[in-house]
């Protein structure tokens, strides 16, 4: 029996094991929606904005490791999704986006709702396709999932003109695998490199493991844990890597970088051997590159050769799947004697005793840090926490101690305000058995509040923890430090009544103004298993994120809360964002 292109597309998604699609209909995808309507195996989640669809698919992927799928119409459908696609791209998150396109014969004619989707997304996808023929559908979908999920993962877009969804053809079976002469995925690394790295590790007197998002995306956490424990080395994790190694373990120094801990950054600065696993030496992590790890030999493990020596020249580059490379290193290190590093640990313990995450409490004012600590306590550290972008994101990363991977979901690379809520919804759909909290700010949440409606329709109970400081706090902090307190456009006036807002969407809203109400409110929120609860928590409007490496400074030049005057930044620093 002949099938139309839309049916073939939906069948292909089914064969690919897709269970959920986040999308929004429109003219160019009506046939696809018609085919979806007849398909029981796939649940479609109707978002309220295509950016929300992409973020929700992204959150779904990050929580589960399964490739999320987004379906949008042509023109404004795909342009709305671009921010979500770019967000996934910057964090190497696999995702398949299907966009409708005007009929083939109209492409290039400025047809109604036509945009060059392939052109617009080119620089923020791993790859994209324009399907030109109905016979290409199955292979293109197979290739798209293969490319999105292997190697260094990333979003892949398939643009499909409407006429191709309407045309009919005798369907071909969905392929089990796909051969691409131009795309090979590195797996095991060269054993000579493993040996060289092992030799270097064995000589290290001040070693440190620096691990990142690659260890989560590459499901390498068991290997990372085994490797680090076997050697007894200290480990610091990037914002994207939190949870791969348990934060509460004694070998963990916490996060490094701009708002990392004192001990993590000092240890990086003084290390003689850095084992960088699944990281990309991002500028938020390295601080001033000229002052980065001055005494260290650096071993860099990454699946993407273009990440290696991109920002920092490394001594040993190991291109390969971080999971396999670490397991090879584990075996190799069993045959080696390593140095006694007890002196190094005593030095680290001294840095730890500085207690760089300590903060001053003020009577009658809720400190944002306390909110996250209480959230941690109430959820016993087991929730999935998504966040938006700003100060609240840094506090969530600092004070919620992630012991498991895929529990901390944030937009690290693109820093997209608006990510948190739809990502939480996607995460809840992927992991209904887990508590999901969205830590946000009154600025960020307003970029995606419409998804509260989707969350009611699909019953995805999420606890929204709004650290309401009345400011675009991260902007205000920079203006306080580096623009002589000229608070240009960082104060948020005319805020909505968030309690009523939540209620109008059919959810529960709770306002928290006093510290003694904080814990009971959080407990109450998590008791409401089946409801989304919006906690609007008024926090200290003047609080800043510490510790901090100001732009242009090195890892050893951190500023600590209440202890250091904020030095004015040098000109090089001001150029940075």
């Amino acid at each position, binding site marked *: 029996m002949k099938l139309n292109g839309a049916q073939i597309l939906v069948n292909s998604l089914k064969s690919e094991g897709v269970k959920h699609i986040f999308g929004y209909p429109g003219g160019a995808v009506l046939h696809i929606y018609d085919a979806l309507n007849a398909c029981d195996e796939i649940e479609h989640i109707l978002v309220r904005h295509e950016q929300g669809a992409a973020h929700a698919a992204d959150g779904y992927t990050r929580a589960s490791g399964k490739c999320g799928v987004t379906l949008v119409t042509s023109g404004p459908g795909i342009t709305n999704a671009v921010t979500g696609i770019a967000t996934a791209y910057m964090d190497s998150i696999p995702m398949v986006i299907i966009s409708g396109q005007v009929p083939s014969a109209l492409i290039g004619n400025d047809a109604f709702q036509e945009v060059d989707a*392939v*052109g617009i997304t*080119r*620089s923020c996808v*791993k*790859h*994209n396709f*324009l399907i030109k023929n109905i016979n290409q559908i199955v292979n293109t979908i197979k290739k798209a999932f293969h*490319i999105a999920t292997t190697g260094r993962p990333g979003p892949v877009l398939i643009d499909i003109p409407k006429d191709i969804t309407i045309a009919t053809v005798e369907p071909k079976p969905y392929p089990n695998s796909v051969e*691409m*002469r*131009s*795309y090979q995925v590195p797996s095991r690394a060269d054993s000579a490199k493993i040996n060289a790295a092992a030799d270097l590790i064995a000589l290290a007197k001040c070693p440190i493991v620096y691990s990142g998002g690659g260890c989560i995306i590459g499901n390498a956490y068991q290997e990372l844990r085994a490797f680090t424990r076997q050697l007894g080395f200290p480990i610091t994790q990037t914002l994207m890597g939190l949870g791969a190694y348990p934060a509460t373990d004694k070998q963990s120094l916490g996060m490094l970088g701009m708002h990392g801990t004192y001990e993590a950054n000092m240890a990086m600065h003084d290390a003689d051997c850095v084992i960088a696993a699944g990281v990309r030496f991002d500028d938020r992590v390295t601080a001033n590159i000229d002052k980065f790890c001055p005494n260290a030999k650096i071993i860099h493990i990454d699946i*993407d*050769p*273009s990440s*290696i*020596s*991109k920002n920092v020249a490394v001594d040993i580059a190991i291109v390969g799947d971080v999971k396999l490379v670490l397991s090879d290193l584990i075996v190799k290190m069993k045959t080696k004697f390593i140095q006694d590093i007890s002196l190094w640990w005593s030095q680290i313990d001294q840095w730890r005793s500085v207690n760089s995450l300590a903060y001053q409490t003020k009577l009658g004012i809720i400190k944002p840090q306390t909110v996250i600590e209480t959230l941690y306590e109430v959820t016993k550290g087991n929730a999935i926490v998504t966040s938006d972008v700003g100060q609240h994101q840094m506090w969530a990363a600092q004070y919620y101690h992630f012991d498991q991977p895929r529990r901390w979901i944030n937009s690290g690379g693109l820093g997209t305000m608006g990510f948190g809520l739809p990502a939480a919804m996607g995460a809840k759909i992927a992991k209904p058995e887990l508590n999901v909290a969205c830590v946000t700010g009154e600025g960020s949440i307003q970029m995606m509040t419409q998804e509260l409606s989707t969350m009611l329709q699909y019953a995805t109970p999420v606890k929204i923890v709004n650290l309401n400081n009345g400011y675009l706090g991260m902007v205000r902090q920079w203006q306080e430090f580096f623009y002589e307190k000229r608070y240009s456009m960082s104060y948020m006036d005319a805020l909505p009544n968030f309690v009523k807002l939540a209620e109008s969407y059919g959810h529960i809203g709770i306002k928290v103004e006093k510290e003694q109400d904080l814990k009971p409110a959080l407990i109450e929120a998590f008791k409401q298993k089946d409801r989304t609860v919006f906690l609007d928590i008024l926090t200290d409007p003047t609080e800043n994120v510490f510790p901090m490496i100001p732009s242009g400074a090195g890892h050893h030049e951190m500023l600590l809360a209440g202890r250091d005057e904020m030095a004015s930044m040098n000109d090089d620093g001001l150029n940075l964002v």
Partner: protein
Amino acid sequence: MRHIISILLENEAGALSRVAGLFSARGFNIESLTVVATNDSTLSRMTIVSIADDGIIEKIVKQLNKLIDVIKVTDLTATEHIERELLLVKVNVNQQTQVDINKQIDAFSCKLVDVSEDIYTIELAGKSKKINDFLANLDASKILDVSRTGVTGICMRNRNLTKGA
């Protein structure tokens, strides 16, 4: 330093814009770019000349390799290779300049591909440097039009751009 980078890629719509887009998005420089299908019509060969230090060239090569449509990238400058570029130039000739122009045409072994009353159309194939030298030797005020193909190149002897290392 000047590098000639040879890229073998899928002959698909959009492949050229992926490469060109990569150069502009990452701020890499392109001196010249040529692209045409190979004898296998599913493949294209693109040859790019870029002036950059070795570190940048290494980044360019890695980023090119990351593109899904790209099959093989070779920095020709790092191997023994032959490079060629084709020039077509139109110059104004008159009785005074003719002798000198003829001398240059002979010296550079150019071809005179079209001659009209007062215009010569000259063809020259060779390394870019030779073409630059030839153009420099012409009287600039007499040059009417210049069209160059940009560089193409190939590895010498057993090394191949298409198969093997």
